[in-house]
């Protein structure tokens, strides 16, 4: 399976019926493809819609209806359009059940860095700091390594997005649960060994006696 699809499918399992969920740009946005409509989940796009729907058919796009990446979308029955103050009121005020975000680094304390590589890339934090601060549950969806370097590190070297400990990290190799004691290796990707995950992680991982394979 494509690594990004694996990550998206695994994250989708944690999305429960009736939740309000915000998906970040890129890989996290793929998660919606694996959440069945009958689960009754509302997806929020922070630019101003609750109840984000699929891309419209060619030629049916509405220039006034886009997602946070600027791509054309539709709205599902029951959707609401909101302004930015309401949108971030929902996020910061604890009304958002879950956010799924990409990451550059996650460290042993479960802290996320995902908005800046000093001197190289300064895109800005957009809504990420508010999302990590305010969402009830924060899931980081990212590749375990980039160009051979682990993104699971002892201490973030890149600027932090927030002090908050994220709730779950889903990569193409593993599911990690940050706890007060450290990062617990909760699941392995299909066909991946614990030894391979440890070798691909710059952080120390807490390895339980039994680490089941992801069921995706």
């Amino acid at each position: 399976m494509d690594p990004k699809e694996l990550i998206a499918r695994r994250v989708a399992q944690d999305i429960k019926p009736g939740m309000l969920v915000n998906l970040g740009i890129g890989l996290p946005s793929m998660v919606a493809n694996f959440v069945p409509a009958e689960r009754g989940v509302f997806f929020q796009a922070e630019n101003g819609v609750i109840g984000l729907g699929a891309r419209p058919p060619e030629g049916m796009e509405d220039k006034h209806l886009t997602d946070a990446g600027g791509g054309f979308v539709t709205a599902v029955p029951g959707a609401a359009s909101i302004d930015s103050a309401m949108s971030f009121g929902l996020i910061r005020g604890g009304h958002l059940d879950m956010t799924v975000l990409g990451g550059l680094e996650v460290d042993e304390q479960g802290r996320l860095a995902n908005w800046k590589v000093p001197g190289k890339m300064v895109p800005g934090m957009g809504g990420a700091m508010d999302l990590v601060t305010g969402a009830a549950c924060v899931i980081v969806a990212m590749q375990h390594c980039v160009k051979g370097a682990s993104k699971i590190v002892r201490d973030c070297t890149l600027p932090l997005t927030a002090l908050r400990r994220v709730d779950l990290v889903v990569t193409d190799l593993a599911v990690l649960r940050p706890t007060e004691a450290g990062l617990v290796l909760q699941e392995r990707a299909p066909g991946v060994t614990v030894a391979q995950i440890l070798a691909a992680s710059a952080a120390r991982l807490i390895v339980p006696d039994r680490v089941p394979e992801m069921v995706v």
Partner: protein
Amino acid sequence: MKGALSPAAAAALIPDGSSLLIGGFMGVGTPERLIDALVARGARGLTVIANDTALPGRGIGKLISAGCVSRVVASHIGLNPETQQKMISGEIACELVPQGTLVERIRAGGVGLGGVLTPTGLGTEVEEGKQVIEVQGRRFLLETPITADFALLAAFQADYVGNLNYALTAQNFNPVMALAGRMVIAEPDHIVPVGVIPPDAVKTPGVLVDHLLVRGV
């Protein structure tokens, strides 16, 4: 509401060096004809306060490409490589603000509040140089209000007295910015007679709007 202006007449009201709140999110809900007129007039030294700088060739991206802007206050510039290049080269000074903080700072400026207390940014680079205030046992950053010389808005409909409504995700920062500009110029998709927008559907009351842009052709 003082009346409807041509884009060129509106751009002529905006001197070089002005600060502008500009509505929009990746160019959606951005007053494009006003921006085109500012580019055509060769505006210089503008401060732009907006969620983002869109893409080159779109919305605020056109002002960046044309060299109209010397300072940007935004939450995200990652999809406009020109803004990043100009920031790195020093041509544009850039202040990055978390999106939820940016909208509340503008709201605070517009509604007469002395600032906002937010947990967003605590323990990050955003905290640097800011006061941390404890309220009921929780820590918050004090973020200061933002106002500007002009607010340039995009709306869906405007009526003859300047009442505005918005369409779907094109509202974004527009309704909040309507309160925080000392002069407010709105570019609606449609201008309709008074009464067409029912009072309950008015999102920005016309008393806040100084000028509309004339209908597009």
